[in-house]
């Protein structure tokens, strides 16, 4: 294992681990505060119980998210000092603002978690809303920094190149590079969709054992309510993304579609194996004009293929294309499930056994799609850290033996993941039984609605 590969593996693992907790940190406080809000409005005890239990889960997941996020902030420099030396002054602004959002999140989560009964009801609920809002704000700013790596803007390079540092820095231009909207929206929606499906899957599982449990019904309604709306919005956001990427990151678009030759009326390829040597994607299901339509909303638009760009600027087409297929495939299934749920809700029916089973099966889909989508954007930017400006190989630290920290942190992450799953399962196993909640607890108010 070369040091470059070890650095990429360590940073990739750290982010793949952290991103789950970060997404939960965005969405879970919203579920928790919605449950509390419902309790305060209707007096439904089931919702109070739900808010308290979700808060416990949030506490565990947020703590791991906070410390794993600290690892990322240090590893940016520990593994990529050349990148941070160059990029720090340009994209420090969103990171600085994210610092304050993180402060707000940590302060008000402390008040929320430990403040039951110690602060007034209004302050408690408000603290919950602040946590939910600042979690989303954090994700917003951090994503902006990633957008800049994909579409660098707001600086000039002198004759000395990257080594001499950037000139003419405008931090606010750098903060909002062309196409920032699509990525920020897509990331935020993915947090709610992934967390919503994961939480809904757990409660659907419990409902399959005990169909009339009002606690799990209320939980499913909130978690899948949010998750389903997000899953239905995500294809729209994805379409917006495809159109912005087509103009701002054409190489990435070509790679993720497995599109080698520049052509008008380009087909959309579903599945298939891109072959960089033969410069074609084999075994794909081709939909004529599909890509031109999706990327430019015009069946005859020209879509540049990978061949239009120098070979040393191509990412690993196979990995990017496959990760993209996984993301779109899972996202489509999620949108279908969300639509089915929406139809049932409109007709006022509770989800049946089959839909509950499907929700259990689809429980990890959101997070798998989120990870796949993140891989698309990161692998799709290779071989660059800052696209077209700074190569990954030139960003890495001169420190050697990076396989040692890689293995060490792998062990640490596996350990943390196992413990988190065990602790969450402990909380879920303790969730209230229908009998314990008393006849008709919470349901009376809900049936009327």
């Amino acid at each position, binding site marked *: 294992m070369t040091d470059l590969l070890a650095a990429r593996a360590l940073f990739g693992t750290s982010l793949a681990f952290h991103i789950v907790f970060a997404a939960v940190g965005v969405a879970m406080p919203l579920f928790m505060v919605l449950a509390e809000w419902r309790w305060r409005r209707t007096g439904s005890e089931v919702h109070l119980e739900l808010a308290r239990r979700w808060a416990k889960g949030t*506490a*565990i997941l947020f*703590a*791991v998210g*906070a*410390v794993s*996020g*600290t*690892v990322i*902030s*240090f590893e*940016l*420099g*520990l593994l990529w*000092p050349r990148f*941070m*030396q160059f990029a*720090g*002054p*340009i994209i*420090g*602004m969103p*990171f*600085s*603002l*994210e*610092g*304050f959002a*993180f*402060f*707000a999140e*940590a*302060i008000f*989560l*402390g*008040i929320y*978690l*430990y*403040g039951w009964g*110690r*602060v007034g009801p209004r302050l408690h609920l408000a603290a919950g809303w602040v946590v939910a809002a600042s979690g989303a704000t954090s994700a917003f700013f951090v994503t902006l920094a990633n957008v800049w790596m994909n579409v660098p803007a707001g600086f000039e390079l002198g004759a000395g190149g990257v080594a001499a*540092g*950037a*000139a*003419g*820095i*405008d*931090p*606010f231009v750098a903060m909002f590079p062309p196409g920032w909207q699509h990525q920020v929206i897509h990331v935020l929606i993915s947090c709610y969709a992934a967390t919503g499906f994961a939480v809904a899957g757990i409660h659907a599982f419990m409902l399959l054992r005990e169909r009339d449990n009002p606690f799990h019904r209320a939980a499913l309604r909130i978690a899948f309510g949010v998750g389903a709306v997000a899953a239905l919005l995500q294809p729209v956001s994805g379409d917006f993304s495809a159109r912005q990427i087509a103009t701002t990151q054409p190489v990435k678009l070509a790679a993720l579609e497995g599109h080698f030759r520049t052509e008008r009326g380009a087909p959309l390829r579903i599945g298939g194996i891109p072959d960089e040597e033969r410069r074609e994607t084999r075994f794909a299901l081709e939909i004529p004009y599909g890509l031109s339509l999706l990327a430019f909303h015009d069946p005859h638009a020209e879509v540049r293929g990978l061949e239009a760009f120098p070979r040393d600027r191509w990412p690993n087409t196979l990995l990017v294309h496959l990760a993209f297929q996984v993301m779109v495939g899972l996202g489509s299934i999620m949108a279908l499930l969300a639509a089915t749920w929406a139809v049932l809700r409109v007709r006022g029916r509770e989800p049946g056994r089959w839909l509950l089973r499907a929700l259990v099966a689809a429980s990890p889909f959101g997070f798998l799609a989120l990870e796949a989508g993140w891989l698309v954007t990161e692998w799709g930017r290779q071989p660059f850290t800052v696209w077209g400006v700074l190569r990954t190989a030139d960003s890495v*630290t*001169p*420190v*050697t033996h990076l396989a040692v*920290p890689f293995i*060490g942190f792998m062990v*640490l992450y596996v350990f*943390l993941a196992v*413990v988190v799953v065990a*602790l969450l399962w*402990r909380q879920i196993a303790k969730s209230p039984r229908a009998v314990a909640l008393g006849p008709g607890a919470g349901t009376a108010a809900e049936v009327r609605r």
Partner: protein
Amino acid sequence: MTPADLLGGVILAAAVLYALLGGADFGAGIWDLLAGGPRKKEQRALIEEAIGPIWEANHVWLILIVVLLFTAFPPAFAAITIALFVPLMLLLVGIVLRGAAFTFRTYDAPEDRVQARWGLVFSGSSVVAPLTLGVIVGALASGNLGAAARGEAPFAWAAPFPLAVGAFAAALFAYVAAAYLAVEAGGALREDFRRRAIGAGVAVFLTAALSAALSWREAPLVFAGLTRRGWSIPLHLATGAAAITAFAALYRGQVRLARAAAVAQVTLIVLGWGASQYPYLVVPDHTLASASAPRATQVPVLWALAAGAVLLFPALYLLFRVFKGERPFAILDRDRPR
């Protein structure tokens, strides 16, 4: 006063707050490890109650320091991360295990065995983190990182002076933590932490003396700052006065006064480190001026910090007001709090 000086000042202020808040959380973890006597369980319960709601917020000061370093002083940040790769990685492991184990202990089974296991991870990593943090600070001040910053000497930090500063940092954090816990405890438990604060204060004195002696050979700039600059004597007198006040107040059981004096003492120590290192960020290669990002970056960041502070400090006050009682920062020891 250039923007770089102002930003250096903000970083130093954040370091003071991190030592006083985040440092005290680590110190509380050290007391969890050293809990003993007839009230062992009660000591641990108080520590858990004291840091539970606030440790995550206190931890963000460190993130702020990192972000400000790479935004405003990028070459210094790159040099630090390369030269101190090993202790920074160890610090990260300490930070991750401390936070995770503390939370796991709160939400895992209440049986003694399970709790003791997480408690050991939590308190053990609460010792590792301040040690490595002190080593990092000591190595930065020593001026021996030239080759290390080129990736050539990954263990340059493993010298007597940085290690002594590591021990000093651990003692200092344990000292402030005991001073805070003495205020928050009642009755016999207060007596436990009052005595622990005195013991830790002695450890602070010994490790400080050791570090100062070693700085004569290994960190000439710090040594000069300690002895020869114009402000050296007044700073020493002020720090010494704070230390004596803290000791006297602890001896007489005036815990609020002792807490305030300990806070002043720690603040002066961190400021003294900053002042003796000024204008260097990494001795001797990077100064505030030479490592500066362009003005176009530094000035907007200062405005962002000012705007953020307006939101941050009231929120922080609220947090401490809710969890640390009616007078969270009181200095005077009234007989009967209103």
